[in-house]
């Protein structure tokens, strides 16, 4: 007995300073896996490394895809338990506030050092983190939409595989040239398949920062919808109807589609499996390239004790340090969250080897945050339903966007006066 106590005492002295300064010894967090790959093992090894360094045990709970993780987190917290912090979509900030379960970083406590740390992130990644003058989340697994294109297909359509179009009209024409048909006129290769909204590419924001207003029926938003539809009915470069998101990757890899829009998080997967040379490019815009950044941030929850909140924030700082962010980016394909991470030798070396990994970063200056409002899931559904109706030719673009605006405004009405 005496011996064991003696051992414990030595361990406590040997543990680094951080560990002794805090009383929270065990933390739980939920995280999603959005694009597959060995993400769970990478997260577990991060936690193990943190425990070794700080003595704090961080239990990472894999909770499904983004929406499942969101549902599980809210359900667990409402049931009186739940994680201390979680990786959830950056765009969910306002609706998590609706649930009244978040604690802001400012409330946990930010000293000068911590403020400096926050200012080290790419500003685009914090675009979905501010509300009411406070910061509510920390960038973690961030991605952006990019185009993956089949260089072999470009070559046999007589196009320059090193030059990707940067404007909508050029993109439409390029995609039309990439379509291949067999002797009976049946399409064997589609030019392009798109996945998400393009409004920001027309330099139109979709919502205000307070998350209480949407701008779906603005002329530029309607123009974006019109362009999306024109890929099928004007350029005949994309199939009619809705293409499902999980199907895009297989479509591209099997050569069925020459250009797809997908997340940077898919880079490792495409690099492993594409049997042809491929390129990546930033999204084209109406006049010039623009993109949105998506992905997950770390959120901290109110029900945790002050000690646990502090401990969670410490973990967030540790995990977003340049070396860790670089390692995370290399292993997963997510964009490292700070410029400092791109100065680390590890990431520099990796980019020299895999230049595609750098493309997304160069688009960060023209990036904005995703659509993020109160009742986010509901507003997304309204928008998605109407986009689908438009792609299925049951509604004209202006009608679809006007309906989306009316319905979303109805959903957001209670928040306007709050």
């Amino acid at each position, binding site marked *: 007995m005496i011996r064991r106590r003696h051992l414990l005492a030595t361990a406590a002295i040997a543990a680094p300073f951080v560990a002794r300064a805090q009383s929270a010894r065990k933390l739980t967090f939920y995280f999603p896996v959005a694009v597959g790959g060995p993400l769970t093992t990478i997260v577990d090894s991060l936690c193990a490394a943190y425990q070794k360094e700080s003595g704090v045990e961080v239990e990472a709970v894999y909770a499904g895809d983004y929406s499942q993780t969101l549902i599980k987190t809210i359900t667990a917290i409402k049931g009186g338990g739940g994680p201390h912090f979680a990786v959830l979509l950056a765009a969910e900030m306002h609706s998590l506030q609706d649930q009244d379960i978040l604690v802001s970083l400012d409330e946990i406590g930010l000293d000068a050092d911590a403020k400096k740390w926050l200012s080290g992130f790419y500003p685009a990644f914090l675009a979905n983190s501010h509300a009411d003058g406070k910061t509510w989340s920390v960038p973690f697994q961030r991605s952006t939409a990019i185009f993956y294109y089949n260089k072999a297909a470009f070559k046999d359509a007589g196009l320059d595989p090193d030059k990707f179009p940067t404007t909508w009209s050029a993109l439409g024409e390029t995609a039309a040239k990439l379509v291949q048909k067999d002797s009976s006129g049946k399409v064997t290769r589609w030019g392009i398949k798109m996945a998400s909204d393009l409004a920001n590419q027309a330099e139109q924001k979709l919502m205000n920062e307070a998350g209480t207003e949407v701008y779906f029926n603005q002329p530029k938003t309607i123009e974006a919808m019109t362009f999306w539809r024109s890929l099928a009915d004007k350029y005949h470069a994309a199939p*009619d109807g809705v293409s499902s998101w999980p199907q895009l990757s297989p479509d591209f890899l099997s050569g069925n589609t020459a250009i797809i829009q997908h997340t940077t998080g898919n880079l490792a997967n495409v690099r492993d499996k594409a049997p042809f040379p491929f390129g990546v490019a930033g999204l084209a815009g109406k006049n010039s390239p623009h993109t949105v950044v998506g992905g997950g941030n770390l959120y901290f929850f109110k029900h945790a004790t002050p000690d646990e909140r502090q401990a969670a924030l410490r973990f967030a700082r540790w995990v977003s340090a340049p070396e860790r962010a670089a390692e995370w980016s290399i292993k997963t394909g997510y964009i490292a969250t700070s410029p400092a991470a791109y100065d680390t030798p590890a990431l520099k070396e990796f980019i020299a080897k895999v230049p595609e990994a750098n493309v997304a970063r160069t688009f960060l200056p023209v990036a904005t945050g995703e659509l993020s409002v109160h009742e986010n899931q509901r507003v997304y559904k309204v928008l998605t339903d109407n986009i689908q109706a438009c792609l299925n030719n049951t509604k004209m673009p202006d009608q679809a966007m006007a309906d989306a605006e009316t319905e979303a405004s109805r959903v957001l009405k209670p928040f306007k006066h709050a």
Partner: protein
Amino acid sequence: MRRETIHAYLLLLPAVILLVAFTHWPAIETLIDSFYATPHGGKPAPFVGIDNYTDLLDDTVFWQALHNNAVYAAATIPASIVLALLMALAVNGALPGRTFLRLAYFLPTMLPMIAVANIWMFFYTPDYGLFDRVLGWFGGGRHNWLGDSSTALPAMIAVAVWKEAGFFMIFYLAALQTMPTDLREAAALEGSSRWNYFWRVTIPLLMPTTLFVLVNAVINAFRVIDHIVVMTRGGPDNATTLLLYYIYETGFRFWDTGTAATLTVVLLAILGLTAWLQFGVLGRRVHYR
């Protein structure tokens, strides 16, 4: 109270406790919740009377879900029952490879719905999925089965029928196996045709089984939505949104608990009404031996 009565109630007690705790009490609680608005930010939910119900009348997605579910039920229930009966008749006779056929018909039932949905996703994939390839040999073009509003719901119906028919077949097969052979001999002596025998003897004797299968089919038409979650998430533009999926979305994606409770009451009412119709009206016309 008589001793026997007390004994009877004591024996029923465990089942009653379970039913009350997990079925009746939640149903009553849901009914009560449907008269309250969704609580926001820790404040208690205000009483709103029948507002949730009147709001539902204006909810176009609700009406579409109801319509979709009606179409879905009207197609899956008769189709899976008729198919089940045909399959049972086919494997009831003495034909070579019978066990193998029975197994093949039953296989879809043994797979979890999630797995079935993933397999069928591949079947429905445009251009290079199974269906488009097969149709391609006959000069067919591209079909975006799940992405087109007009084919998405029929595609869901096909999956459900495929999954369910094998299960119902087992009940029909069991009933056919226990059917006394002297009936057939007697009918043969009377010079009755096979069709007449089937129609006048087999079908009536199968009625108890049919009622049982029908009850199950109706419940499943409202209860099983796993394939919707995996394959379409109710899309495109709510073309495949069934009532239960809409409840899930409203309750756990939008956290609109008031509306979700109201929708649940509507679903309970529909199921209650159909159960009453089945047992009260049809049940009386079924001949039990």
